[in-house]
């Protein structure tokens, strides 16, 4: 199978920003992603982040009442990306924000998932994880009425052990795309019987082991060079401003 080209139109290696936000507040995480999505001048950006406190995020269109986990989750936000709810604990989250006409996101949305998931599968294989796209068969992790992303699968999802292992969702607006991804490092209270990296990574610092491999595969697969960076002051300010609504009762219970 020929891997779809995601090189820039000029064929040159692109430089993307890499912003890492460890143990960041849920409002900041969501606010910064939205700030990057809405700024047409923002450079191509990959974020890796974790959450503090542990947070349940609802998909943009989900009904509050359809996610029973909201009762026991502690912190809750609503994302602007679609899909099901995710419990952000024991997890590495990533986001990619690019123009919609970038080769990575060009064409049908499912193809863009395929491009990103190929890079993830390659990174996972380095740790002995035999991951692949789920295909048409249902998964052992599929569950009804939990509202959780990892309990619903589509053929393009990444799975191993016949269970879903990566949560993914996108938001497209203003000619730009925000892609969210979630990789579980271990089991979580609200996402029983899913695929995780427990046992594949060193227990003490699993993110320290996996993140460099993921970054290498992204650089290789997407023909990009990643440069570590921090959000600009204006991006921090926008993130703070935009972040306020994510946990607000009116936004959380909009549906």
């Amino acid at each position, binding site marked *: 199978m020929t891997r779809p080209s995601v090189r820039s139109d000029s064929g040159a290696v692109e430089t993307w920003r890499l912003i890492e936000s460890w143990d960041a507040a849920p409002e900041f995480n969501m606010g910064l992603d939205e700030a990057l999505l809405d700024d047409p001048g923002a450079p191509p950006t990959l974020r890796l982040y974790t959450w503090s406190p542990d947070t349940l995020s609802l998909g943009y269109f989900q009904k509050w009442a359809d996610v029973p986990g909201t009762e026991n989750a502690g912190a809750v936000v609503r994302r602007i990306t679609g899909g099901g709810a995710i419990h952000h604990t024991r997890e590495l989250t990533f986001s990619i924000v690019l123009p919609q006409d970038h080769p990575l996101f060009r064409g049908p*949305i499912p193809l863009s998932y395929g491009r990103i998931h190929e890079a993830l599968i390659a990174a996972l294989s380095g740790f002995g994880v035999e991951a692949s796209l789920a295909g048409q068969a249902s998964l052992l992790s599929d569950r009804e009425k939990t509202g959780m992303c990892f309990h619903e699968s589509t053929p393009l999802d990444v799975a191993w052990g016949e269970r879903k292992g990566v949560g993914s969702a996108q938001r497209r607006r203003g000619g730009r795309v925000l892609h969210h991804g979630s990789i579980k490092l271990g089991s979580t209270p609200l996402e029983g019987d899913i695929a995780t990296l427990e046992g594949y990574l060193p227990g003490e610092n699993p993110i320290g082991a996996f993140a460099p491999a993921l970054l290498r595969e992204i650089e290789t697969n997407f023909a990009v060079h990643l440069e570590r960076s921090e959000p600009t002051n204006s991006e921090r300010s926008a993130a703070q401003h935009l972040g306020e609504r994510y946990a607000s009762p009116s936004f959380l219970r909009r549906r």
Partner: protein
Amino acid sequence: MRPDDRHYLPSHEWVKTDGDTVVFGITDFAVEELSHGNEDDLVYCDLPEPGRKLTQGETFGEIESVKAVADLNSPVAGEVVEINKTIEDHLQVLAKDPWDKGWLIRVKPDNTSMSHLLDAEGYEASVGEADE
């Protein structure tokens, strides 16, 4: 060639004059981007209530496929007078027929000018660039 009886936004919405109102929809290209040929992949569409005033370019609704949420942008300014209730519950109609039965909303426009929009030929060109 897409229908030449309407105008287009580069973001894949169309607008068609119908008497003293106009009708908004999204193109086959948008449907294909969202669903890639699987009509069941469109899962939710949020449309405005009749009576809402729209400005040109404003987001008037949102559509969700299995894997993405996308904004719906208003090609012209005006007041929403009707929404296509059928597609709110049956998005397969939009997936199968985005040009006719899958229309989204009917609007009483503030004016009839569409000179800021693409005609079918211009839209074809913009889609062609996106396909390259």
